[in-house]
């Protein structure tokens, strides 16, 4: 394997940046969830890269756990979206503003 770790780490950082930008600017809650998935995947890519260059299987095991956390997060998150949609008929975060001070 000859590709340097730096290349993958830069791709991972860029992916994280794009995901963070999406969470900041998009207003559809489903797309915001997808952007959170992008950021989790950026972390996964960084973990696997470190696992390769440091010869440590811990990085790959951590990716495994990130995967489980992502699945649980999506399940509960989409459950909340469905519950909100049932009451509000909207998936836009700006419409859920009752608790604004």
């Amino acid at each position: 394997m000859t590709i340097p770790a730096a290349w993958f780490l830069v791709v991972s950082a860029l992916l994280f940046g794009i995901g963070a930008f999406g969470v900041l600017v998009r207003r559809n809650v489903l797309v915001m969830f997808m952007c959170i998935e992008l950021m989790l995947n950026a972390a996964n890519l960084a973990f696997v890269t470190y696992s390769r260059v440091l010869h440590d299987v811990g990085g790959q095991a951590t990716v495994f756990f990130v995967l489980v956390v992502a699945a649980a997060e999506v399940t509960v998150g989409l459950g909340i979206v469905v519950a909100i949609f049932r009451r509000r008929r909207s998936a836009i975060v700006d419409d859920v503003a009752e608790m604004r001070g």
Partner: protein
Amino acid sequence: MTMGLLLATTRSIPDVLVFILSALIILGGAVGVVASRNPVHSALCLIATFLGIALAFVEQEAHFLAAVQIIVYAGAIVILFLFVIMFLGVDRSESLRVEPLSSQRPIAVGAVAVVTGALIALMAVGGWYSGAQSVAGPTDPNHDVNVLGKAVFTTYLLAFEATALLLIIAVVGAVLLARREPEPDARPEAAGSRDDDADEVLQ
């Protein structure tokens, strides 16, 4: 100096090509997720990103994780997203021109650029990676599943049990959240008022 070190390393052309391809798929898909006006298109671009990540995993000899990535992410999580999009019927296009908060986007661009730049600069200053080698055991590309399984069930057993608990909590929570209210004919007045609310919102 770091760049010189990087460029001095000899590497094979196919490796570089696969890396460039995976990087293009990953970043192109990510931009598509953020820039698509239709949530369904976002979900499809998300699949592209996951496939690109799986390609990067294969390139880094994490073959089992690449398979899991495709099965769990592209196969389960994106399908769940698409299912909810279709179920709610929110697959309409959303105008991206409207900017409800003035100057939200320039500030977001600035903040994200600063954070990403700082991240890359920090890694570059630190020589990209440092630390102890093989704390939890070395990786083995030829016996991927063996090594990973052994690590998960010995070194990371507590974390593994915690994820089992987390999954149970998530399932119970999702069922509770998605449960419908009691039958309409059991509480006619409550159901009637709720329908009125829904009609008002629709109008």
